[in-house]
């Protein structure tokens, strides 16, 4: 599936001490006067992984302007985005050796605009065809990508609950699936089982841990995802979709108020992930 990236993101080199860096800066000035819809990226913001910057980067067509062969801008984009991108290296444009910096900058600005126009539809290197960016909040914490689906409720035991008419579907969050690693066995409770908030509804086992499924609401099981008995890996592959666990008829739908919203769980998840990473590094 092709994704049309309508926003444009240009990341200029930050090497102010070098001629290439100076030209990059001039390119940006020209670009801004030619097309004010272009987002100018910041090497500093990307390095410190400011969420807004990462989001802009990942949802746009990207062109890097590298001032020299160290290619800081390109390296940084490689690190934070899975998509293909374009880059121009100022120092290799040897046929412009006699031009002034300003002339070089104009030429490069034109090249950038051409690249942005040409790559109006791109196929990303890895693509998540079923999930559009607007349904999920993502955050990169080191190499760990936290993915929280909007519109769901989340328990502090890391299970999600989704309202479906009068019923509630539950599953495990992407955070939990990443922490427990490969699930190889799921033991589901029977249809008709009644539970109170916090009770166990079956269990699952992964290479790292054996865990109970802790229900995020009180109610009766009306459906269970039996396919997990043959394909437990769905829990890891698609925790919000085909890895669902149960559909429950709730005793009291207002009980979902006890759970966190997606935004609240997002903040909670970031802290938990950082903590988890701290542990991984020391082990």
């Amino acid at each position, binding site marked *: 599936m092709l994704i049309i990236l309508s926003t444009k993101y240009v990341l200029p080199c930050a090497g102010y001490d070098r001629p290439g860096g100076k030209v990059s800066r001039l390119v940006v000035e020209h670009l801004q006067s030619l097309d004010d819809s272009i987002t100018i990226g910041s090497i500093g913001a990307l390095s410190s992984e400011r969420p807004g910057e990462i989001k802009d980067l990942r949802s746009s067509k990207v062109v890097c302007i590298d001032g020299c062969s160290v290619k800081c801008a390109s390296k940084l984009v490689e690190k934070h985005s899975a998509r293909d991108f374009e880059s121009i290296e100022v120092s290799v444009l040897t046929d412009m050796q006699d031009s002034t910096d300003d002339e070089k900058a104009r030429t490069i600005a034109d090249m950038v605009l051409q690249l942005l126009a040409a790559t109006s539809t791109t196929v990303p290197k890895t693509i998540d065809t079923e999930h559009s960016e607007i349904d999920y909040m993502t955050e990169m914490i080191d190499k760990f990508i936290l993915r929280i689906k909007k519109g769901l409720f989340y*328990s*502090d*035991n890391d299970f999600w609950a989704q309202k479906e008419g009068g019923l509630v579907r539950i599953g495990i969050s992407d955070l939990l699936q990443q*922490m*427990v690693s490969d699930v190889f066995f799921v033991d589901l409770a029977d249809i008709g089982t009644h539970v*109170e*908030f*916090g*009770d*166990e509804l079956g*269990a699952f086992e992964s290479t*790292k*841990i*054996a*865990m*109970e499924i*802790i229900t995020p609401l009180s109610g009766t099981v009306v459906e269970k995802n039996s396919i997990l008995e043959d394909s437990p890996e769905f829990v890891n592959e698609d925790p919000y979709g085909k890895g669902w666990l149960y559909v429950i008829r709730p005793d009291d739908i207002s009980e979902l108020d*006890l759970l966190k919203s997606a935004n609240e769980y997002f903040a*909670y998840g970031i*802290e*938990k992930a950082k*903590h*988890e990473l*701290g*542990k991984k590094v020391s082990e």
Partner: protein
Amino acid sequence: MSNEGGIGSTFMSVSREKIPWWPEVDTDKCDGCAGEFDCLKFCPHKVYRTVEGSPPHIEVENKFNCVVFCRACQKMCTKDALSFPEKSDILKIIKEVRST
């Protein structure tokens, strides 16, 4: 696997120390699994520690590290030495604290 719990953390927006959830070890029944200490090895949250004795057995060291509503270690115990509070009581306490 890490734990976000412990002293100073919250569970369902309630300060963890206000929630009386942790395992009780029946010292008459616990025999340390003949040195295997299955519950201690299983728990990723460092709730347990070993205690000298004849035989050496288990006690709870970090009760607030225990994940509220989790009873996974109980299944590991062959001597039925671990018990937990009633979940409905715990939920009541959580709701009460939240409403104040």
